[in-house]
């Protein structure tokens, strides 16, 4: 591979890893901050992707969407729709135990999958939608533009969620995660805070989905298999360090690096195995999750909640608060 090819692959890799990092940051708010189990990440990711796609593609006869809207409108619509979906899901399930939320979210994921597949008037069904425009395509058509947009959104999401983590708001979410009855006794509206965290996290997932759609240019229900939209995101978050915003981003890049790296290994396998290589790669990621859960459950960058007096204490002393 020559230099330009390598560079092109680098841009491609970074863009996708960046999109996954945004997705992981969304899950980090839900699981890392507040301990909410969302096993339906793919639902919010695909709703975001479809919302932005329908707003921005050219008008057509096959399905309802197609408003030729600018990409930024698509992104905002993706956030709004995933936010509304998350609000209703959360309203029903967040007062319940966390494992019920996990079950309810796979239900949402299943229903979203069924709707995308069967409501062809809205989503063009299994045929999928092609010709999704890239951001600023009219001005400058270069893969670097997409990468810049993704990194910009990633930076913004990182900045906002890191601030939220240090703010009193993040402290309440952590308190709910660690000890719900105590937080309730302290007079906090537990369900209200959970709902805010759940909606915010899902909106970030929606943006990631929209960016994904604009990046690949073609979406269909098959593009949103739970393995690649939910499972791998969980591995990224747990590997990187749930609760740690930098860890979430690091986890996304490391796991996406491993995932892309294993693709190279499968090239040396005998031809008969090539079709099964995908299964082998998923198996490795699954085993990796078990190893991390056993050996380093806190992830590469463990969570470091701000010490109550961290401004006054000497540097280096702001270690983990006792749990």
């Amino acid at each position, binding site marked *: 591979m020559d230099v330009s090819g390598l560079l092109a692959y680098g841009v491609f890799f970074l863009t996708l890893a960046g999109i996954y990092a945004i997705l992981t940051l969304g899950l980090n708010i839900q699981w890392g901050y507040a301990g909410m189990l969302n096993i339906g990440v793919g639902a919010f990711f695909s709703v975001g992707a479809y919302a932005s796609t329908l707003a921005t593609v050219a008008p057509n006869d096959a399905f309802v969407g197609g408003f030729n809207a600018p990409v930024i409108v698509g992104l905002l619509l993706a956030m709004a729709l995933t936010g509304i979906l998350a609000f209703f899901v959360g309203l*029903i399930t967040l007062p*319940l135990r966390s494992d019920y939320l996990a079950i309810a979210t796979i239900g949402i994921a299943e229903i979203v999958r069924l709707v995308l597949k069967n409501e062809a008037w809205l989503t063009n069904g299994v045929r999928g939608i092609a010709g999704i425009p890239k951001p600023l395509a009219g001005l400058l058509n270069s893969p670097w533009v997409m990468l810049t947009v993704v990194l910009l959104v990633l930076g913004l999401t990182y900045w906002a969620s890191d601030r939220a983590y240090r703010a009193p708001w993040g402290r309440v979410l952590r308190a709910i995660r660690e000890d719900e009855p105590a937080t309730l006794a302290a007079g906090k509206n537990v369900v209200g805070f959970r709902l805010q965290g759940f909606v915010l996290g899902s909106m970030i997932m929606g943006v990631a989905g929209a960016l994904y759609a604009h990046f690949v240019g073609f979406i269909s229900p098959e593009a949103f298999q739970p393995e690649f939209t939910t499972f791998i995101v969980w591995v990224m978050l747990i590997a990187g360090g749930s609760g740690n915003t930098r860890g979430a981003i690091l986890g996304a890049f490391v796991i996406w690096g491993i995932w892309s790296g294993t693709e190279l290994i499968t090239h040396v396998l005998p031809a008969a195995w090539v079709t099964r290589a995908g299964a082998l790669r998923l198996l490795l990621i699954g085993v990796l999750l078990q190893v991390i859960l056993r050996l380093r459950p806190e992830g590469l960058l463990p969570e470091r909640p701000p010490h109550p007096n961290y401004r006054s204490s000497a540097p280096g002393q702001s270690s983990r608060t006792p749990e």
Partner: protein
Amino acid sequence: MFDFLQLIIYGIVLGCILALGAVGVSLTFGILGFANFAHGDLMTVGAYFGYIFIRQVGLPFWVSLPIACALTVAVALTVDWTVFRPLRSRPPVILLISSFGMALILRSLIQLIWGSDQLVYEQGIQQPWRWGELNIQPDQVIIIVGAIGLVTALHFFLQNTKVGKAMRAMADNVDLAKITGINTERVVMWTWILGALMAGAAGIFLGLDTQIAPTMGWRVLLLIFAATILGGIGNPYGAIAGGLVIGLASELSTLVISPAYKSAVAFAILVLMLIFKPTGLLGGR
């Protein structure tokens, strides 16, 4: 009217499969405290073990069934010893995440060994038995008879053996059961044995009813969770009743809504239960 009765038959067949799957989920949920997301894929494992003995070795069905179930139990115990047991001292949600990963491991292993093509236990179309306008396939009779047999055996195990009683006690209240001196590890082992036995049979029956594919178990997992919650977590009898209700409801729903949304009906029941009666119809936790 005949449509209705025909759908009742389909509903009972699906209900039997779901009931067998839900027993395992309900027991592990009640005793180990986590929703086992790998249970659907354990069913898939059972279905593929069945495929080995029925198609690849060529043994009769009723001989292959117990062998495949025994091997499914071996897989479940291996998974418990290597993956779940070391995590048991940690919060149950960690087990849930781990089981989600385990589901994917089992599924990819199956794809690795058998590929992703759909398989069947028997080639060709079966001649259905006719009753007026009602059709019933011999396979469907096998499923119903098999499920009744297994549930009866389960009932005697739970009611008459010491382990069975201890298991019900633990599913009802873990702390109280531990105080009375119940051997926890033994009960946990038997929970996996029973759950996996039922899951293996459920997988083979599901393969008989439809086709054998790597995602078959994952696809019905939502229905099984709905059955479990409907029956009340930790209550195996509730799980059986819940399975039948969910099976009937999803088949009968096709009278009113598009069959594509069958599993959405189960989800709707699940959500309504979570809102109005999270302890389940027959009582549980």
